[in-house]
């Protein structure tokens, strides 16, 4: 929360590098999805998507350079969503 107006300027090259990684990950996720890994497929897809989301968040959305408050509350939000999705499996998996 301190010194909120100190801005971090990301260089174009960093941003472009992130874009390249994102495009590469897109190619990888398409590639992986064509191989039959059974149940692992969906987990691989989610994992790669999470990586991509991480890059977008950390660099494009500047979360890496934001205050601790934003970082923590973001994790809390994702955590709550994960709990909501996770907890319905108490019901669905055991019905």
């Amino acid at each position: 929360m301190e010194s909120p107006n100190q801005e971090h300027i990301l260089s174009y090259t960093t941003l472009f590098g992130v874009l390249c990684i994102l495009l590469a990950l897109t190619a990888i996720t398409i590639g992986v999805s064509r191989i039959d890994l059974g149940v692992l497929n969906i987990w691989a897809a989610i994992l790669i998507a999470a990586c991509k989301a991480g890059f977008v968040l950390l660099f494009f959305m500047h979360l890496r350079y934001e205050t601790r408050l934003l970082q923590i509350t973001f994790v809390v939000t994702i955590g709550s969503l994960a709990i909501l999705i996770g907890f319905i499996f108490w019901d669905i998996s055991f019905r």
Partner: protein
Amino acid sequence: MNSSTPDKAGVKLGMWLFLYTEIMLFGGLFVLYAAYYSKYTSVFIEAGKSLDITIGALNTMILLVSSFTVASAITAIQKKARRSAAALVGVSMVFGVLFLVNKYFEWGHKFEAGIYPGSPDLSDAEAGKSLFFGLYYLITGLHGIHIIIGLILLSISLYFITTKRIHETQFVVLENSGLYWHLVDLIWIFIFPLFYLIL
């Protein structure tokens, strides 16, 4: 908001809090997706194959690149390059429109094939198929609405850049519109593998 220099960190915090609500909004649909995927895994995989991977991948790239251009616009405005900032926001908006055009044709094809919410084909199909497409239309539809809102926000930013209300020390509007645009991208990052790529 008390003093003449608005508290930028506060405005951004407000925007992030709003983004959290958006994440939870889509989250509700992903709850349904998770539940139904675990129940009808094979039906979902079969139905997913009928979606066009090429268009999906194309749209993914479009959104990723537009996210990049929006992020670069912020860098540009910080470096006092107002013209290139305006151009970059403009390019992002063009990409946004392209995305919608693609989506329009994609939906159009599905409608022609008799796959739309409440269609007789889906009602008679095996259990689970209409759930897949129901979720598909709901999520992508809601996502499309968010793209449109994002475009409106970007055009406001573009207007402010050209009228110099956004400049190197005062660009929180652009930043917040950018955050919103990235969120729309984030959601698509999950939609793409979960609907187009499941095998």
